[in-house]
């Protein structure tokens, strides 16, 4: 498996999704659901929750490993810039690395969440157990 062979996966979190996700996680931070509060903090609109980025990164990885049921070992991400509801995020795999030996070998897929200007809003890395893919 190499990064270049993995096609970008896109998603577009909606206002409704952000509101629903906030409800499901007991996250009442108004920047995710209230356009006025978001504007007061200098944001163009309600922004995607940090942990939602992680879920989307995990979904992207599972799209790329669609033939398997990968076991999630680690996930890490860094939020570089906010993403507003309605913006399309294009997840690309930038690198695939392996470490360890079977049966404990791990595979890490590094991802970038690109916006329309090709700037990376989020950098993430998802590690799965190689034996599960």
């Amino acid at each position, binding site marked *: 498996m190499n990064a270049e062979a993995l096609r970008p996966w896109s*998603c577009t*979190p909606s206002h409704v*999704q952000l509101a*629903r*996700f906030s*409800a*499901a*996680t*007991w*996250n*009442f*931070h*108004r*920047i995710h*659901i*209230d356009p006025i*509060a978001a504007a007061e*903090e200098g944001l163009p609109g309600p922004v995607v*929750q*940090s*942990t*939602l980025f*992680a*879920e*989307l990164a*995990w*979904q992207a990885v*599972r799209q790329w490993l669609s033939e398997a049921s990968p076991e*999630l*070992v*680690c*996930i*890490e*991400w*860094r*939020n570089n810039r*906010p993403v507003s509801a309605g913006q399309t995020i294009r997840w690309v795999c930038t690198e695939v690395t392996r470490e360890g030996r079977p049966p404990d070998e791990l595979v890490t897929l590094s991802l970038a969440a690109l916006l329309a200007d090709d700037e990376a809003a*989020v950098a993430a890395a998802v590690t799965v157990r190689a034996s599960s893919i």
Partner: protein
Amino acid sequence: MRWAASYAAQVNSRSDLDIAEERARDLLQVTEYSTLGEVTARDSAEFARAAGETDPRMTDSDSPDFVVHPMYVVSLLRAAPGRVDEDLRPDGMFRTEVPGTDGLAVRLMAGGQDVTFHRPCLAGDYVDVSRTLIWVERKDGKSGKFLLMTVAKTYTARGRGIIATLNERFIVR
């Protein structure tokens, strides 16, 4: 008594960011404990659907193959809260979510996390959480001064062991 007036002026000129930093440094390595309560298949399934999941093993709580979404418990800010209004800042964040910021006019943003999964969370697990502020750093950026804080958390299923450990980064302006 000019020194007293000068000292008072310096103290009074402390910004809320200064106060947040001072409080946070006092809280370094202090561990707090809380509980998320019982994890239910219904709530986990709703979380999965809200995240845009399509795998019925995570979105259908009646599925015989149902599994709790691995990110569910680590994404929860709280269990079902009781006195919600009293627990919240005006911006909607929980008052205790970012250590040292309660009552201060500072802006809070999430910087990201790194999460390690130790064992699957099961529907019916009763999950406890420990939180420790492990890092506070003051920085200068293009938009002005800000604090970087890192909180370490451990999620444990009673009777079964650790589900996940993570470090979570906050930006305070």
